[in-house]
């Protein structure tokens, strides 16, 4: 998601093509081509410029509704819906069967493996979705920032937070039953929005770190120097 105002001018975008399975959009105002995943103009008058990122949060509808009961939801377009254009509920299984066109040859992971990608201070790291789900939460340090990656109760919504509280890194563990987190320093309980809900730190909020759910080949294509989290290696530096 991107802010569309650049130099005081609001751009309007159209789908314009595809670059190694990541789409290109063209703005009406200058005709420049923009890469969807990076928000960077790759060709045209605005080449080299970047749109301002809007933090991405890809979560289940139930969770979103609980956090934002007053929010609004994009309605299906009646024509597209009638024509059966929208993806079925199990659409990700269908995508997994599509061919992959990519120049990425890095087979450390399966090309179609679902990963959770994090970029901190220019350091990129990919976590296999299955590791994220099994080890929930994952405690790690990327680009010098101690972070935690958490999966919500629905098993699919993923968020990451900085583990710094008052300048010091805290360790976070799953509670039993796994409905939230507890920190090792004070025993305070934390929820999926990164807020301490009880204990000495109640009311405190951890800083969000953006995560991107992506396929390995796509993540690797736009983060060529990415590290990969090795399950089981606790506190691996990157």
């Amino acid at each position, binding site marked *: *998601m*991107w*802010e*569309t*105002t650049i130099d005081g001018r*609001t751009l309007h*975008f*159209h*789908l*314009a*093509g*595809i*670059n*190694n*399975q990541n*789409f*290109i*959009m063209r703005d009406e105002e200058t*005709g420049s*081509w923009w890469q*969807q995943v990076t928000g960077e103009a*790759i*060709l045209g008058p605005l080449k080299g410029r970047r*749109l301002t990122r*809007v*933090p*991405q*949060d*890809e*979560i*289940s*509808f*139930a969770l*979103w*509704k609980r*956090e*934002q*009961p*007053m*929010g*609004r*939801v*994009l*309605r*299906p*377009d009646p*024509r*597209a819906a009638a024509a059966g254009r*929208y*993806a*079925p*509920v199990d*659409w990700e299984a269908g995508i997994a069967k599509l*061919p*992959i*066109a990519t*120049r990425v040859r890095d087979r450390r992971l399966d090309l179609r493996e679902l990963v959770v990608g994090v970029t901190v201070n220019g350091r990129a790291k990919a976590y296999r979705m299955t590791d994220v789900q099994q080890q929930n939460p994952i405690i790690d340090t990327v680009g010098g920032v101690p972070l935690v990656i958490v999966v919500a109760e*629905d098993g*699919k*919504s993923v968020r990451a937070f900085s583990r710094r509280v008052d300048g010091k890194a805290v360790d976070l563990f799953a509670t039993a039953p796994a409905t939230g987190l507890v920190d090792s320093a004070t025993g305070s309980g934390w929820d999926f929005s990164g807020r301490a809900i009880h204990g000495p730190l109640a009311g405190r909020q951890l800083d969000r770190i953006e995560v991107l759910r992506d396929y390995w080949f796509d993540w690797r294509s736009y983060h060529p120097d990415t590290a990969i989290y090795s399950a089981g290696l606790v506190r691996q530096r990157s």
Partner: protein
Amino acid sequence: MNRRLLWFLLVIVAALALAVVIVPAWVIQPFRPQSPGGLEISFVLKRIAPFVTIAALLAGVALVVTLWRGARWGRVFLVILLLPPAFSAWFARQNHFEWMFNPLANAGYTRADAATFVGDGDLVMAVARNGEAVAYPVRQLAYHHLVQDTVGRVPIVVTY
């Protein structure tokens, strides 16, 4: 002027007009890797295609008019050779990606508690700005690919 030369020119004009629109469409097709050079050529061709194809069509018409007298059965081929520039001039003004993935012209929204069209387990892209929260169901985004909106007075494009 040499009629043979004019016929030859007509064939060249038809081939060029076609190439200007076919090459970018070929290079940026899905399920095929793209190179930076290929993208650059496509970008340039797409930019000049609206003008080049019209010029080709006009040149084609002029050549056909010149060759019309004296071409008896050849008139069929003259008409056929006008089809590529005509097609190209039209295609250069189309966005065939929007044929496949219709843009969302008038995006409509529903209150969270009234949104019966999204399953609880469906993923949404969520954004919250200046007190306003919006969810974009991924199953809809996966088709439209981009949705433009203004959230908390900030114009944004949601991409998937």
